[in-house]
């Protein structure tokens, strides 16, 4: 059987703040298999971006990353910076959310696409140029020769995001982390980028971790999804199961707004979490303040991430479990939940 490409164990990210540490991500564990496309969904502040960037130790200097990240069996978090650099860009590529700020304004996009190849493959700029041109045309950019000489501010939003993707794919990484790749774009462009990612997914033997706040985007591309809330994973499962039968109340609130959701909506009574919810973590379930079905046990202790039901399969080689972090499912209380309130 194949080994997982990425195995994350107990990942934690803490940010140093004036008032002490603030836990952005706490105890996250998951695996990504080769060629698999996994979604990581959560609202702003849920820790999804911190979690994805911490895989390569790219959080700012104030962020402390804990836990283990095995890439192809190597624990890359324990590597010295010098060796970790060999993974960044080469084994794992990253697409960022806002192409305008994540591209260097004073360098031509050509240089920015070529530099990871020059760095990792030790090839000449001339050789890198060939591949850069190829990548740009693969991204559907016409007159790539001219584009190579342009600066980010001269490009439109859609082209910038394509440049960003070319950059991440430059060294043919084995894992692609895409952090909200469509969020900054207009609706019709989002669609184009999703289609582009779908094509890339079919053409390259690359695994993708797609980070997004939008379950619909994830649904378009992913096999499997993990839902985060308050720095924790609250539910995981195959994308179809999640849409058909969301277990965690938070997941349910996300799925309910989907136009295709056909069941009775619960409607969350609670407001979105007050902005400091992470510095002031409640005892018990983190979702309790917004949950419509909160009971006494939810306020006592935090539920664990529990495996539910049998194994799911991706293709026929990788298996996974459905998991949920909610008291309702801790003691086989499944039936109770089936009836809408």
């Amino acid at each position, binding site marked *: 059987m194949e080994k997982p490409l990425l195995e994350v164990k107990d990942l934690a990210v803490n940010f140093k703040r004036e008032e002490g540490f603030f836990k952005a991500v706490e105890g996250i564990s998951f695996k990504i298999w080769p060629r698999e496309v996994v979604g990581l969904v959560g609202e702003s502040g849920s820790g999804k971006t911190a979690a994805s960037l911490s895989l390569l130790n790219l959080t*700012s200097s104030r962020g402390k990353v804990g836990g283990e990240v095995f890439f192809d069996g190597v624990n890359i978090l324990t590597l010295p910076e010098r060796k970790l650099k060999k993974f960044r860009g080469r084994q794992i590529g990253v697409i960022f959310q806002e192409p305008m700020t994540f591209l*260097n304004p004073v360098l031509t996009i050509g240089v920015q696409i070529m*530099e990871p190849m020059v760095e990792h493959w030790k090839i000449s700029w001339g050789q890198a140029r060939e591949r850069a041109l190829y990548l740009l045309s693969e991204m559907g950019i016409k007159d790539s020769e001219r584009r190579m000489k342009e600066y980010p501010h001269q490009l439109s939003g859609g082209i910038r995001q394509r440049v960003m993707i070319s950059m991440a794919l430059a060294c043919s990484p084995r894992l692609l982390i895409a952090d909200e790749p469509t969020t900054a774009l207009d609706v019709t462009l989002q669609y184009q980028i999703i289609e582009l990612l779908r094509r890339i997914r079919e053409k390259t033997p690359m695994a993708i971790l797609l980070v997004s706040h939008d379950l619909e985007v994830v649904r378009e591309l992913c096999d499997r999804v993990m839902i985060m809330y308050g720095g924790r994973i609250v539910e995981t499962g195959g994308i179809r199961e999640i849409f058909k039968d969301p277990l965690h109340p938070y997941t349910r609130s996300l799925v309910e707004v989907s136009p295709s959701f056909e069941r009775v909506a619960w409607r969350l009574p609670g407001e979105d979490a007050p902005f400091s919810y992470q510095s002031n973590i409640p005892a018990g379930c983190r979702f309790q303040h917004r949950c419509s079905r909160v009971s006494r046990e939810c306020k006592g202790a935090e539920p664990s991430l529990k495996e539910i039901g049998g194994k799911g399969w991706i293709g026929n080689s990788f298996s996974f479990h459905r998991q949920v972090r909610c008291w309702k499912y801790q003691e086989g209380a499944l039936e109770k939940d089936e009836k809408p309130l």
Partner: protein
Amino acid sequence: MYPFFSRRIFHAIIVLLGVSLLTFVMMNLAPGDPYHLDPELRFNPEAVARWKELRQLDQPLHVQYFSWLKNMLQGDFGISLVHNKPVWELMMERVPATLLLTGTSLLVSLLISIPLGVFSALRKGSFWDQVISSFTLGGVSIPNFWLGMLLILFFSYHFKWLPAAGMRTVGMEFSLLDYLKHLLLPTVVLSVASAAYFIRYVRAGVWEVIQQDYIITARAKGLGDMTILLRHVLRNAALPLITVISLHLPYLFTGAMLTEYVFSWPGMGRWIVSATLSRDYPSVMAINIMVAFLVTLFNLVADLLYASFDPRIKYR
């Protein structure tokens, strides 16, 4: 790109015209008439009238301004009331000395401040960063004329290593070493404040750049630290520094004036003080115009440099 250049040059011309107008207004605010200082003219109305006619002082103000401006453009700044020599000649004797001093210290302070500032930003909060920050605080706070006196006390009077005054040893034949020796202390004194000021900006600028999203991108590509620093950080941090230098220039001249005074450096700074004390208005105004002209010129060059380095401006 060319519209930007021509507009910028036009702007500089407008500023210079404003400068000349302001100077002209100040000159006309001068109490009494300059000829009052001349005992021969003082009690001789006919001579006064002739004197006035000669200098076109009987014309309306705007005519006077334009003829003054015309003269000035031809290098005629009038006659010094004290030295009885054309101001232009006096200026040509002194401008090079000031430019030598300010130029050297600008260069020195940049050579010191860029590496220190970059280092400080990369190691923000470290022991050495704090040492450098303390130095910059002292540097911007210390009155440079006092610093000059202290240095003279130590290096000239106490240790007798370096000369305390002038540009060269009087009566000695030209020697580069002698020049450099004379230049050393004034340069140090003048550079301290500028270096401190530049370090702060370089530090803040580099720190800001390394917070930017595109630095995360560069790191995510697995680039080496040196590549990131040189290609991604410094290129972006260097641009604002050009502006900072040009904004700092007037302060450099102010510092030069005091430094020249302390070290008896034969430049414009010392001259404007003596000219002011002796109410030699043509000289005072000429110096003002000259300095403002130099600053404007440098600002213009800085802006054009900035524009040709920053792709975002080039295409506007």
